[in-house]
C-alpha cells in the first residue's frame, strides 16, 4: 500500500483538565474522501486543527505524506500547507478583501503572482464553483452564505492541493444549497485527484461525499469503514448517531 497522504498516530490534545483527543489513530489515502462523524463537542474541529498544524498535540504523531510534521515550523510547515486546502465552517473569508482577492490570496501573497494574472485565475476558479465573474469585485459581506461557501471552496482548490479539509461544509445552508455544495465538493475533489477529509454531523452530506467514514467519540476513533456499510456498522454508537436517536449509548450534549 502507498504512503498515506495523512496519518494520525495516537494524537492526544487537552485544554487544562479537559481531554479532548485521547488517542486518535487515522489514515487517509491519496484520492480518498473520508468523512469524520461526531457529535457537537466531540473534538472533530480540534482533530482537524491539529492535523493542519494550527494546534500542536500534547502527544502522538502527525505524518503528512510520510513526513513527521507534528512539531514542524517554518519552511517545512509552509511546504506542507502549500499542498493543503481548507474550507472553514464559517467560510473565514477576509472581510477587507474582495471575493477575487480572497480566492487568489495564496497566489498573491505566497506565490507573489501578478494581480492581473491572479484575478484571471480567481475568476476561472470561481467559474468552477458556479460563480460568475460579476461577484469577483464584491466583498464577502455583499454575497449570501451559500455563495460565501463557494468562494471559500474556490479559495481552497485554487492552488490544486493534494489534501483538502472541509469543516462542516454544509452547516447553516438550506438543503438545496447544501446539496449543491456537496456536488461541488465531489466534483472538485475528483477532478483534482485530491484526498478529502470532511468533518460533519450532517448524515446526508456524509453519505453523499464519503468513500469511507470514521466516527469520533470521546476523543477516539471508535469506528472506521466504508461509507456503504454505515447503516450496518454493527456499532451501537454509530448506529445511534446515523439514525439520530436520543436513546442509546451516546448522551445528548444538553
Amino acid at each position: 500500500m502507498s504512503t498515506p497522504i495523512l496519518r494520525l498516530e495516537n494524537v492526544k490534545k487537552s485544554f487544562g483538565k479537559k481531554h479532548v483527543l485521547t488517542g486518535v489513530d487515522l489514515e487517509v489515502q491519496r484520492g480518498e474522501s473520508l468523512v469524520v462523524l461526531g457529535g457537537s463537542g466531540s473534538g472533530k474541529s480540534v482533530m482537524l486543527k491539529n492535523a493542519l498544524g494550527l494546534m500542536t498535540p500534547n502527544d502522538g504523531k502527525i505524518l503528512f505524506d510520510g513526513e513527521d510534521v507534528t512539531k514542524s515550523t517554518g519552511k517545512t510547515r509552509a511546504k506542507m500547507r502549500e499542498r493543503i486546502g481548507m474550507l472553514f465552517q464559517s467560510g473565514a473569508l477576509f472581510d477587507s478583501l474582495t471575493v477575487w482577492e480572497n480566492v487568489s490570496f495564496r497566489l498573491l501573497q505566497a506565490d507573489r503572482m501578478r494581480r492581473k494574472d491572479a484575478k484571471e485565475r480567481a475568476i476561472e476558479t470561481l467559474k468552477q464553483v458556479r460563480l460568475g465573474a460579476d461577484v469577483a469585485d464584491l466583498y464577502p459581506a455583499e454575497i449570501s452564505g451559500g455563495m460565501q461557501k463557494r468562494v471559500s471552496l474556490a479559495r481552497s482548490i485554487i492552488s490544486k492541493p493534494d489534501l483538502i479539509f472541509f469543516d462542516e461544509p454544509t452547516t447553516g445552508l438550506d438543503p438545496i444549497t447544501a446539496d449543491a455544495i456537496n456536488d461541488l465538493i465531489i466534483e472538485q475533489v475528483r477532478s483534482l485527484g485530491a484526498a478529502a477529509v470532511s468533518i460533519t454531523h450532517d448524515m446526508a452530506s456524509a453519505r453523499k461525499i464519503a468513500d469511507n467514514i470514521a466516527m469520533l467519540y470521546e476523543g477516539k476513533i471508535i469506528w472506521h469503514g466504508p461509507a456503504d456499510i454505515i447503516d450496518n456498522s454493527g456499532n451501537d454508537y454509530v448506529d445511534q448517531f446515523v439514525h439520530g436517536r436520543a436513546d442509546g449509548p451516546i448522551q445528548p450534549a444538553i
Partner: protein
Amino acid sequence: MNYSRGSDIVSNATTGKQGFPNPLQWIGAASLGLFSEVGRLFIFFLKVMATAFTPRWYLAQVWKQMVNIGFYSLPVVGLSAVFIGAALALNIYEGGSRYGAEQFVPSIVVLGITRELGATITGLMLAGRVSAGISAEIGAMRVTEQIDALETLSASPFRYLYAPRFLAAIIALPLLVLVADIIGIMGGWLVSVYALDFDSTTYIRNTMDFLTNNDVIVGLIKAVVFGAVIATMGCYQGDRSEAGATGVGRAATLAMVGAAVLVLATNYIMSTLFVEIGL
C-alpha cells in the same frame, strides 16, 4: 494560541473550607497570573518586533494602516491638542499671576506641550481609538477563523497583520505628535491673545526663543514608544480574544486600558530618563 488568562488563574485559585478564597493562595495566584501575563505580552512584543524589522514587508498593508491610524486620527488629536493647549495657557496664567510671572505663559506652554502633553494626549487618544480598534478587528478575525485561514494560506498573522500595524503606528505617532504640538501651541496662543490680552507677536517670539530642538525630539521619541505600545496591546489582546461578542468587547477594553496605562507609565520612565541624561 491557547493559554489561560491571568484572571483565570486567579479564579481557579483553591478556595478555603467555607468556600472563601484563601488570601495567601489568592495573592500567589494573582502574582503568578500577573507575571505570566507580562511574560506573554513581552514575548509577543519581541515577536512583533522581529517580524516588523525583517523582510518580507507588506507595504500595502502598512500604508493602509498608516491612513487608518494616522490620517483618521487627525481630528481627534487636533481637537484634543487645541483644548489642552488653551487650558494649559489659562492655568499657567492663573498660577503665574499670583507671583507676577504671567510673562512665562508662552515658554511654559511650549515646553509643556512639546515635552509632555502633545505626546501624552496623542498617546492616550490613540490608546482609545486605535488600540481598541485594532483589538476589536483582530479579535473578530480570530473568532471567525480568519487568522487560522491566514495561516493555512501560508501567511503569518505576525507578518501580515501585526507587523504592518506596528510599523504604521511607530511612523504615524511621531507625525501626529508634531501636529498635536503645533495645534496645542496654537491653542495656548489663541487663549493668550484673545482672552488674556497678550500681544500676538511677542507671544510667538517668546515661544520660538524658548523652544529647543531637544524639546521636540523628546516628544517624538516618546511618540515612537507610544506607537509601539498602542499597536502591540491592540494586536496582543485581539490575538487572544475569546469567542463571541463579549470576548471581542473584553479584548477591546483590555487593549484600551492596558495601552493607556502603559502610555502613562512609559511616559514617566522616559521623562525621568531624559531629565537624567539632560535631553
